[in-house]
C-alpha cells in the first residue's frame, strides 16, 4: 500500500483498528472470566493491561508512517476553513500575493527563456564554434575572428573531433516571384542542418555535390520568408526563385524559428557555390563556424586538435597564417545587451514581491495575535510546539500556493502583452514559455513567500505564558507584537524607498539624456536602406551611375530638400571601426611588410593604434544631417578618384590627435582602408555625432569619427559598399509622407530596386533611449505598486495596533487628552517605523544606484535629487495612511471604550 492509498483509506483503517483492539479486549475479558474473575473486575483488569486505548491508537497511527501526511491534510483543511471564514482578509492577501508572484514569475519566464535555456537544438552542450585570432599587429583589438574559407575547408576535412559546418552572411534582392524583396541570405555548407541535428520542415538539405562551384543553384527557404513571400504554400518546394539575377530551385523549407546564428535568415544557399575571390584568400576571415563534438570527444581534445591544425596551417601558409590560432568555444545563444535589463527587472520585481510578503506577514501576524487564545488552548490540550508551528506554516503555505496559482495564471495571461511592450526585438523571445521550469520557480517562490510571512506568526505561538494568554486573551500580549509589526512596516517602507529612488534616478537620467544634443538635426530626416537593382552591381561604372541616378531622381521629388548616401547611420545598428595614426609621414616611405594581408610598417607593429568610426558619405550628407563645420570644408564634387584622398574628422578625433592644433591639412594613416595608399588628408573638422545613441555614446569605447567621400571609393569596393548604402533625405514636409513617392521614383527600370528599413532620425533617436524608457516605465510601475502596498500595510498595522489600544485611548480621553494628543500618539508610533524604514531604504538605495550606474547605459549619478523628491513623497503617503487610524482613535467614545472591557 502506498502512502497515498493509506491516506485515502484512513477512515477504514481507523475502523479496523477499533475492531482489532475491541477483539483483543473481549478475548481477554472472556479468558479472565473463564478463570473465575467477575465481569466488571475482568473488564477493569483487561483495560488496565492494554492501557489507555487512545494512546495505543495514536501509537498505531504513528507506526503506520503516514502520520505527517495525515496531519498535513488536517492542517490543510483547517487552513482552507479559516481562510473561508475571513473572505476579506483572504481576498486582500491572495490578490497581493498573486500580483507579486505573477509579476516575478513572468520576469523569470523571460530570464529563463532568453538567458538561461540552452540552444533549442539536440544535445546543445556538444555544439561548439571556432574562432580565429592573429598574433600580429594590433591583434587583440580585433578580438575573435571568423575563419578564412580555405582554412575552414582544411579544418573541416581533417578534424577527427568535430563535425564542422560553415556559414556566410550575405544579402541579395529576390526579384521573382512576387514583388522584389531585399533578403537576408545565409550561405551554408551542405552539412549545417545535420550538424545541428534539426530536420527541415519539408524538402531536403543540400547534397555535398551541390556545395561546390558549378553545382546546380539550389535554395532552402527560411520559415518566415516562406510564409511571407510564398504564403506558406507547400508547392514552393520544387518551384524556383530569382536571386540577384540567378535562378535557384527551391529544395526545402527550414523549420519555424530556426536561427543557427543571429537573425532568422530568409534564404539559404550552398556556400561552396560562392565564386567570390575573397573566399580564396586566407587573409580574409568571413566564415562563421558551427560544429558538433563527435561521440566521446571533449572540448579539450578538440582544442588540442585545432591548435595543432593551426600550427600546421601557419607552417604551410606563412604569408597569411603565421601566428594564427584557433580556439574552440562552447556555442551559446546570443542575447546581446538585454541581459542587464532583464536581470534588473527581475531584481526590481522581486523587491515588489518582498513588499507583498511583508504586507501579508503583518496581516497574518495581526490575525495570529487575535488567535492567541485558541493556540494557547491547543498547547494546554497537549499540542507540541513543532505541531503548532507546522500548523501555522501549513496555513501560510496554503495561502502562498493559492497566491502562486493566481500568479501563474496572471503570468500566463500577461506574458505576450508584456512582450509586445518590449522596446525593439527581444532575442529568443519565442523561448519564453511557461514550462515546468517556470512552474517549479513559481512553486518555489510561493512556498518561499509562505515561509517568509508564515514564520513570524508561527514562531510567536504561545508557549511560555499559556496561563496568562488563556486568562487575558488578546489584550495581554498585544504589546509584545508591537516590535514585530514595526519590523514589517519598516521593511516595506525600505523596499519601497529602493524602488522609488531607483525610478527617480532613471527618470532623471532619461530627462538628461533626452536633452542631449545628438550632433545631428534629427527633425525631418528620413533614413532608409537602399538595394540597387542587381543588374547595376555587375559593373562599378554602372553602380556609380545608378547611385547618381538615385540621388538625382530623389532630389526632384516635392518635399525633398537634400539627399545623400551613407553607409552607417548614427543611432542605428552597424559601424565600421578602423585604426588610425597621425604618423603618416613615416609609413609612406619606410619599407613595410605584409601582415595579415595589410602592409604594415615595422615601426608600427608593436604600437597600439587608436580606433575611429569610419563613415562613407556623399557630399550632401553634412547638409542633410544639419552638421556643423568647425574648420576647413565639407566634401565637394572635386573629391574624386583622381584627386588627393581626403577625409573629414570630428572634433573628438581632432582634439585627441592634434590637441589645439588645426587638424585641417594634416594627414592620417589608416592602415586598413585598403586604398589611396592608406594615407588621407584632413580637409575639414565637424561636430561630434552621438553615433552610439544618446544614452551610450558618452561611455562608448570608440568615439572618434572619420568621414570619407563615397566618390573616392575605388572600383573594387563598389559592389560590397553598394550593398551597405542607405539614403538620408532631408524634407520640408513630414518625412514619412514622402516614402510612397520615394519608393515609386526609385524602383528603377526593372522595378527591382528596394527601399527597406525606413525610419526617421527622430525615431532612431527615440529608439536609442527605448531601453532606458522601458526600464523607467516598469520601475515606475513597480515603485508605485510598492508604495501602495506599503501604505496599505501601514494602514493595516496601525488600524490593528490602535484597535488593541481602544480601552487605553478611552482612559486617556476620559482623563482629558485632546484630539490632537491622541492623534499624535498614533502618528508618533507610525512615524518611528517609517523613519527606520527610510533610513534602511536609503542605504539600500545607494547600493541600487551603483548597480544601475553599472548596468544602465547613460545612467546619471542622481541619487541625491531622487531622494529629495521621493522621500517627501513617501512620507506624505505614509502619513496619509496613518492618518485614518489616528483620526479614528481620537474619536473613540470613552464610555463605550471602557465598557468594552
Amino acid at each position, binding site marked *: 500500500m502506498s502512502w497515498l492509498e493509506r491516506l485515502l483509506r484512513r477512515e477504514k483503517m481507523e475502523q*479496523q483498528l477499533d*475492531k482489532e483492539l475491541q*477483539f483483543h479486549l473481549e478475548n481477554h475479558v472472556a479468558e479472565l472470566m473463564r478463570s473465575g474473575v467477575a465481569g466488571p473486575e475482568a473488564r477493569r483488569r483487561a483495560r488496565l493491561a492494554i*492501557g489507555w486505548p487512545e494512546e495505543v491508537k495514536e*501509537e*498505531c497511527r504513528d507506526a*503506520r508512517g503516514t502520520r505527517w501526511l495525515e496531519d498535513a491534510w488536517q492542517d490543510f483543511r483547517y487552513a482552507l476553513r479559516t481562510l473561508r471564514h475571513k473572505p476579506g482578509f483572504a481576498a486582500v492577501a491572495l490578490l497581493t500575493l498573486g500580483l507579486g508572484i505573477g509579476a516575478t514569475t513572468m520576469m523569470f519566464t523571460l530570464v529563463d527563456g532568453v538567458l538561461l535555456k540552452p540552444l533549442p537544438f539536440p544535445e546543445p552542450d556538444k555544439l561548439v564554434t571556432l574562432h580565429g585570432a592573429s598574433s600580429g599587429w594590433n591583434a587583440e583589438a580585433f578580438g575573435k575572428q571568423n575563419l578564412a574559407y580555405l582554412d575552414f575547408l582544411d579544418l573541416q576535412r581533417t578534424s577527427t573531433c568535430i563535425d564542422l559546418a560553415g556559414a556566410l552572411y550575405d544579402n541579395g534582392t529576390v526579384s521573382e516571384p512576387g514583388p522584389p524583396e531585399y533578403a537576408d541570405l545565409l550561405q551554408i555548407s551542405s552539412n549545417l542542418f545535420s550538424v545541428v541535428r534539426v530536420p527541415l520542415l519539408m524538402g531536403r538539405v543540400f547534397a555535398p555535390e551541390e556545395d561546390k562551384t558549378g553545382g546546380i543553384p539550389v535554395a532552402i527557404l527560411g520559415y518566415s520568408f516562406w510564409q511571407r513571400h510564398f504564403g506558406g504554400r507547400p508547392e514552393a518546394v520544387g518551384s524556383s526563385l530569382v536571386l540577384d539575377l540567378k535562378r535557384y530551385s527551391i529544395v526545402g523549407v527550414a523549420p519555424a524559428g530556426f536561427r543557427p546564428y543571429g537573425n532568422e535568415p530568409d534564404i539559404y544557399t550552398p556556400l561552396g557555390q560562392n565564386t567570390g575571390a575573397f573566399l580564396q584568400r586566407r587573409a580574409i576571415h568571413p566564415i562563421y563556424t558551427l560544429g558538433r563534438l563527435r561521440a566521446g570527444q571533449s572540448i579539450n581534445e578538440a582544442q588540442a586538435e585545432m591548435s595543432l591544425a593551426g600550427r600546421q596551417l601557419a607552417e604551410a601558409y606563412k604569408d597569411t597564417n603565421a601566428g594564427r590560432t584557433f580556439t574552440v568555444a562552447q556555442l551559446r545563444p546570443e542575447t546581446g545587451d538585454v541581459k542587464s535589463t532583464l536581470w534588473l527587472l527581475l531584481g526590481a520585481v522581486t523587491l515588489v514581491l518582498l513588499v507583498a510578503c511583508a504586507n501579508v506577514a503583518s496581516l497574518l501576524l495581526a490575525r495570529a495575535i487575535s488567535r492567541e487564545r485558541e493556540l494557547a488552548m491547543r498547547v494546554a490540550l497537549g499540542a507540541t510546539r513543532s505541531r503548532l508551528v507546522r500548523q501555522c506554516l501549513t496555513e501560510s503555505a496554503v495561502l502562498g500556493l493559492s497566491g502562486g496559482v493566481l500568479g501563474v495564471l496572471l503570468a500566463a495571461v500577461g506574458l505576450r502583452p508584456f512582450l509586445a511592450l518590449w522596446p525593439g526585438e527581444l532575442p529568443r523571445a519565442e523561448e519564453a514559455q511557461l514550462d515546468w521550469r517556470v512552474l517549479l520557480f513559481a512553486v518555489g517562490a510561493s512556498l518561499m513567500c509562505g515561509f517568509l510571512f508564515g514564520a513570524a506568526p508561527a514562531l510567536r505561538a504561545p508557549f511560555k505564558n499559556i496561563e496568562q494568554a488563556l486568562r487575558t486573551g488578546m489584550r495581554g500580549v498585544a504589546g509584545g507584537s508591537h516590535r514585530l509589526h514595526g519590523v514589517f512596516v519598516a521593511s516595506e517602507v525600505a523596499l519601497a524607498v529602493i524602488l522609488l529612488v531607483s525610478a527617480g534616478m532613471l527618470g532623471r537620467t532619461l530627462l538628461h539624456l533626452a536633452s542631449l544634443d545628438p550632433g545631428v538635426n534629427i527633425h525631418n530626416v528620413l533614413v532608409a536602406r537602399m538595394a540597387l537593382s542587381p543588374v547595376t552591381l555587375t559593373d562599378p561604372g554602372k553602380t556609380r551611375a545608378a547611385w547618381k541616378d538615385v540621388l538625382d531622381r530623389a532630389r526632384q521629388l516635392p518635399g525633398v530638400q537634400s539627399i545623400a548616401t551613407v553607409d552607417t547611420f548614427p543611432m542605428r545598428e552597424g559601424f565600421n571601426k578602423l585604426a588610425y595614426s597621425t604618423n603618416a609621414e613615416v609609413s609612406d616611405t619606410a619599407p613595410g611588410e605584409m601582415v595579415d594581408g595589410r602592409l604594415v610598417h615595422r615601426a608600427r607593429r608593436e604600437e597600439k593604434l587608436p580606433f575611429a568610426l569610419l563613415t562613407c558619405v556623399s557630399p550632401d550628407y553634412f547638409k542633410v544631417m544639419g552638421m556643423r563645420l568647425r574648420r576647413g570644408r565639407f566634401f565637394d564634387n572635386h573629391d574624386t578618384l583622381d584627386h588627393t584622398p581626403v577625409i573629414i574628422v570630428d572634433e573628438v578625433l581632432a582634439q585627441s590627435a592634434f590637441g589645439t592644433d588645426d587638424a585641417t591639412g594634416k594627414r592620417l594613416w589608416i592602415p586598413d582602408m585598403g586604398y589611396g595608399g592608406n594615407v588621407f588628408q584632413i580637409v575639414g573638422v565637424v561636430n561630434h555625432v552621438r553615433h552610439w545613441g544618446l544614452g551610450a555614446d558618452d561611455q562608448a569605447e570608440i568615439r572618434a569619427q572619420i568621414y570619407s567621400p563615397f566618390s573616392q571609393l575605388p572600383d573594387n569596393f563598389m559592389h560590397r559598399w553598394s550593398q551597405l548604402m542607405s539614403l538620408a533625405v532631408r524634407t520640408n514636409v513630414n518625412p514619412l509622407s514622402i516614402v510612397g513617392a520615394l519608393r515609386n521614383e526609385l524602383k528603377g527600370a526593372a522595378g527591382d530596386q528596394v527601399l527597406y528599413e525606413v525610419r526617421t532620425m527622430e525615431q532612431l533617436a527615440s529608439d536609442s533611449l527605448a531601453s532606458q524608457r522601458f526600464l523607467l516605465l516598469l520601475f515606475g510601475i513597480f515603485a508605485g505598486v510598492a508604495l501602495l502596498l506599503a501604505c496599505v500595510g501601514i494602514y493595516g498595522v496601525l488600524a490593528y495596533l490602535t484597535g488593541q489600544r481602544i480601552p487605553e485611548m478611552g482612559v486617556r480621553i476620559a482623563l482629558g487628552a485632546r484630539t490632537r494628543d491622541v492623534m499624535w500618539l498614533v502618528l508618533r508610533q507610525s512615524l518611528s517605523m517609517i523613519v527606520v524604514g527610510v533610513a534602511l531604504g536609503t542605504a539600500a538605495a545607494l547600493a541600487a544606484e551603483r548597480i544601475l550606474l553599472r548596468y544602465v547605459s547613460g545612467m546619471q549619478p542622481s541619487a541625491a535629487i531622487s531622494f529629495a523628491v521621493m522621500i517627501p513623497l513617501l512620507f506624505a503617503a505614509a502619513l496619509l495612511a496613518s492618518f485614518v487610524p489616528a483620526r479614528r482613535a481620537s474619536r473613540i467614545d470613552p464610555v463605550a471604550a471602557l465598557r468594552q472591557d
Partner: protein
Amino acid sequence: MNPKYDLPQGTLDLLILKVAALGPVHGYAIAQRLEQVSKHVVQVPQGSLYPALHRLENRGLLAAEWKETETGREAKFYRLTRKGRAQLGAEADGWARLTEAVALILKMSEGGAE
C-alpha cells in the same frame, strides 16, 4: 507466582516474528502464546503489542488479513512475509550470538579477568 520480566528493548519485534512464523495468528493469540511458551516469565506489554504489529506490517515484514476465528468471529490475522522470514533469520542469528557472548562473559572465572 514467578516474578515477570520486562522484555529487553527491541526483542518484542523478534518474538512477534517468531510466533507469526508458525502460521497466521491474531494479536491476542500472539500475546497469549508468548506468555505461555515463556512459562509466564515474559510480561508482554499489551499496549506496545499493537503498535509493534502495525510497524512490522508497515515495514512489509508481516502481512495482515481479516479472517474468521474458530469461534466464528472476525479477527485480523498476521502472517510472516518472505521479507519477514529473512529478517527473522538474521535477527535470530544476531540474538543467538549476542546471548552466547553475554553468557561467555558472565561465565568468566574471577581469576580469568586479570
